């Protein structure tokens, strides 16, 4: 089996056993990028080759000396370009940050570097994480490695594509409304959004702060659990960071779902759901049943209200968060202007792309006096109702099973012309962000065109271990079935 096909954990074992050197792995990955990057374009920027090789040698030394013992030591990774990396350009795929070089790293990246993971590059994304296709990037689109005529999903499209194209062994994405789970599903990999507050947002360039959460993307459930375990440390620099004592997520890599209660929302299986997706998800439910889980249908309610509530809240928070991009302290500044305010306006109008401007304007509007109650507070009240509906569901079920997205990956260029339609693609993922819930996307088959389908398991707050255990069990069962 080729080294590039290995999971992060399998690679780590080979490195630990001395069967392969970190420098050799780095060389393989750099060559793979050279070969595939032109057609896929997962990255906004790559770490300088010499720097990667030098760091790889250092990591090998640390492993040899017994200083680096983490399972991620020496494993090449990619980071979404909205997470600050000290001394490495971080653009959010926006012209307004085209030359921004952070002077510090985000907490999650720091934790991974401490564990000895090897940073390869910064991945492409929808501009400021606003989009579901990675087509709103100011630096070109990313293509789906499974079929390059299709989008990789978004907004963490580059992070998903880099793993699927074997340009790295795992990546970090961020998920505000499905931005980890959707591209994971479209590219046929595993992606996980943890409970809000589990991973520090320090150094993550904010979009919708009450919804944003960093999470892992990888080939296997075990890899995701391992990465999440490393990045889930308490951080006083994020006031919403949680002190959790149950972040030993790899302890949940147990193949056992006997007696687990899994609910399938009847209201997820409505119009707009691709038949093949529906069939694949229901087939997965059967697999869970055959493994001893109790699978039942139920009515979740309020499903169709999640998207309008989300766009109100996320846009409102975005309009406030993105006010900092004013052409003063960093980033792009317009060339000609008269006076301070004209400079702000021109800089922002030239620096932001269409989707970002659309959301900033909507956000400014719903927060403006006279409309604040009718739109913004109404959305926050709806959020409370949605949270209550989930509380009710989790009183009866350990987790909720459903599709990640209504369809498989759309063709390139088909989504942006109708933003409203694109927004509907997030119908199954968005509510986990509104309610702060952990959710994982696991591959569960292909449609007739050969495009991957994703299964989503959503747990109650802090119940990552349950969904990791269930996802792991399913994954192992499917591997076994394939062998048989």
């Amino acid at each position, binding site marked *: 089996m080729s080294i590039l096909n290995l999971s992060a954990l399998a690679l780590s074992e080979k490195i630990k056993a001395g069967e392969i050197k970190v420098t050799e792995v780095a060389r393989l990955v750099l060559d793979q990028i050279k070969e595939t990057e032109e057609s896929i374009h997962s990255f906004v920027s790559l770490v300088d080759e010499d720097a990667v090789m030098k760091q790889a040698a250092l990591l090998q030394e640390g492993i040899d000396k017994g200083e680096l013992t983490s399972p991620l030591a020496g494993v090449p990774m990619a980071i979404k370009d909205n997470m600050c990396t000290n001394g490495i350009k971080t653009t959010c795929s926006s012209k307004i940050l085209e030359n921004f070089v952070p002077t510090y790293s985000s907490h999650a990246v720091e934790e991974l570097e401490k564990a000895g993971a090897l940073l390869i590059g910064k991945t492409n994304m929808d501009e400021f994480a606003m989009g579901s296709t990675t087509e709103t990037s100011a630096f070109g689109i990313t293509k789906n490695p499974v079929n390059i005529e299709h989008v990789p999903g978004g907004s963490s499209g580059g992070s998903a594509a880099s793993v699927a194209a074997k340009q790295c062994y795992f990546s970090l994405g961020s998920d505000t409304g499905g931005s980890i789970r959707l591209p994971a599903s479209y590219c046929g990999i595993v992606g996980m959004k943890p409970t809000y507050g589990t991973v520090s947002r320090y150094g993550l360039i904010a979009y919708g702060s009450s919804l944003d959460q960093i999470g892992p993307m990888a080939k296997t459930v075990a890899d995701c659990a391992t990465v999440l375990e490393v990045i889930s440390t308490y951080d006083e620099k994020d006031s919403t960071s949680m002190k959790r004592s149950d972040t030993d997520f790899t302890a949940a890599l147990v193949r056992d779902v006997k007696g687990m209660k899994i609910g399938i929302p009847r209201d997820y299986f409505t119009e707009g759901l691709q038949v093949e997706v529906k069939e694949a998800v229901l087939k997965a439910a059967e697999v869970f049943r055959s493994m001893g889980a109790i699978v039942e249908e139920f009515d979740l309610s309020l499903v169709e209200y999640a998207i309008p509530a989300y766009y109100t809240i996320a846009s409102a928070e975005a309009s406030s968060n993105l006010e900092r991009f004013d052409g003063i302290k960093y980033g792009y500044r317009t060339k000609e202007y008269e006076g301070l305010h004209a400079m702000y306006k021109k800089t922002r109008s030239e620096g932001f792309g269409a989707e970002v401007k659309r959301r900033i*304007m909507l956000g400014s509007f719903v927060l403006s006096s006279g409309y604040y109650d009718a739109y913004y507070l109404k959305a926050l009240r709806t959020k409370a109702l949605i949270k209550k509906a989930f509380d009710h569901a989790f009183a009866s079920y350990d987790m909720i099973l459903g599709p990640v997205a209504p369809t498989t990956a759309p063709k390139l260029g088909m989504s942006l012309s109708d933003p409203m339609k694109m927004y509907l693609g997030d119908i199954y993922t968005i509510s986990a962000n509104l309610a702060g819930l952990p959710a994982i996307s696991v591959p569960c088959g292909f449609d007739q065109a050969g495009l991957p389908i994703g299964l989503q398991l959503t747990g109650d707050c802090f119940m990552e271990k349950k969904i990791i255990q269930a996802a792991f069990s399913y994954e192992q069962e499917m591997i076994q079935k394939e062998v048989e």
Partner: protein
Amino acid sequence: MKNIISDETMEYVGILAKLELSPEEKEHAKQDMGRMLDYIEKLNELDTTGVEPMSHVFPVVNVFREDVVCNTDKTEEILKNAPGVKNGMFKVPRTVE
């Protein structure tokens, strides 16, 4: 479309959002915003009387720390990111006439 966005509203939103749109962009934005508001108004189907607005799912409390400098001086690196610099400071257009 139920929500017709007037030029005045667009002007006002432009001021709030600190964005200056070209005439074509403005026409497009009016349409977009109207459609989005129509869609968002779906929330009016829900009776939310007596429901408290939920800004965060978990209680959020401020994190306090001692007021001591704990970061190193990175003035030079930070200023490297600025579009305009003068005498070790950010250079901005004249703000007071």
